[in-house]
């Protein structure tokens, strides 16, 4: 497990984003226990209140569940939920930026579509 932080957003949001990323990539499997607030706090040198705030974002979103006295676990269906949310935001977060950059570079729509096709060919393991 590796965390890295920058200055772009509050640390608790970055903790939430990185835990979500681990659920997305399968680093944390559904039903498995994740490290406790105190363990993460110690490991990352981050105030436990900040870590808790980050974790609670995911608890509120339904991705994590707290079991009293046992710890925090990845909810059933969490992976599918993250995928669903990311598909919804894919347009805003990626497509808009790609088109914007392409326009700044004077790349035509046709050229951009060609490049996307090339990306699929070279990436081999295309969509499912």
């Amino acid at each position, binding site marked *: 497990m590796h965390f890295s*932080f920058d*200055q*772009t*957003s*509050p*640390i*608790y949001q970055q903790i939430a984003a990185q835990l979500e990323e681990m659920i997305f990539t399968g680093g944390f499997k559904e039903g498995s226990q994740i490290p406790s*607030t*105190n363990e993460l*706090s*110690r*490991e*990352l*040198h*981050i*105030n*436990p*209140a*900040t870590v808790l705030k980050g974790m609670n974002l995911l608890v509120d979103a339904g991705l994590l569940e707290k079991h009293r006295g046992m710890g925090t676990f990845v909810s059933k269906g969490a992976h599918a939920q993250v995928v669903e949310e990311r598909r919804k935001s894919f347009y805003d977060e990626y497509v808009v930026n790609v088109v914007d950059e392409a326009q700044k570079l004077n790349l035509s729509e046709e050229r951009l579509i060609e490049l996307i096709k090339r990306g699929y060919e070279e990436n081999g393991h295309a969509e499912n």
Partner: protein
Amino acid sequence: MDMLKISHVEKHFGKKQVLKDVSFELAPNKIYALLGRNGAGKSTLLSIMIDALRANKGTIKMGDQPISDNDEMLGKIYLMSSESSLDNVMFQRYLKLKDIFKANESFYGGFDWETAGQMVNKFGISLDVAYSKFSTGQKTMAKLVLALCLPVDYVFLDEPVLGLDANHRDLFYQELLKSYSNRPRTFVISTHLIGEIDQLVEHVLILDDGRIIVDQPTEALLDHCFLISGPVKAVDEYTQDLHIIHQQTLANIKTAYVFGKLNDRQAIPDTVKIEHYDLQHLFMYITNDRGLENA
């Protein structure tokens, strides 16, 4: 556990005024940073907060009781510093570490020997060696073990990582957070290694030239730190009503460090990039020599 209230504290040494109307409160179970440049008055303030030094004006109260000459209150506060009694009092220096711990155990009414044993092993120091035989780093380690194992409600750490290498500093931060989660209490950490503690502290106090100039939760503070860069003209226009604490220009590109709110009604130009900067930069630029800043 009661609040510790520092009210209108003033201190001068001869004609030099070291603390000027210093007021703030420490809440139970929080980790604070007390930051300040060399000579800002941090150590003087901490000494007054344990009644080791008398203020010329002002009071320190725990709840509604002044701590001055109040042994019950003073038994709940501990200051670890580079000029502690361990270094100054002759006979203490020649005691073995375990005897120093025992003496403090009887004064503070308890000592966590189990944690102390674990920490001593991890730091690689011995309970059976006289304190005076330790190196600078080892003395710091011994003091940290003592500070974390006493049953006090307020722990002040003045330069807690003095002389420690990166591995031992890492170990200290881990032990501090472990100790804090096992037994929440208030810590005040005074250090120059700001980048190592900026996410560890919940609240930041900055002392500059004897005055408290920042007293805010870390998150809210960093939320007001904006790094604005782009072409000089665009940055100047966008930042004209903002509070700039530092700026630099390289060729036609200007970088402005803004501390405060942005203007919501003003559109952000396409050519201007807005990011956040960290606590270390905030500290550097708001405690800078004002003469240079405004030149």
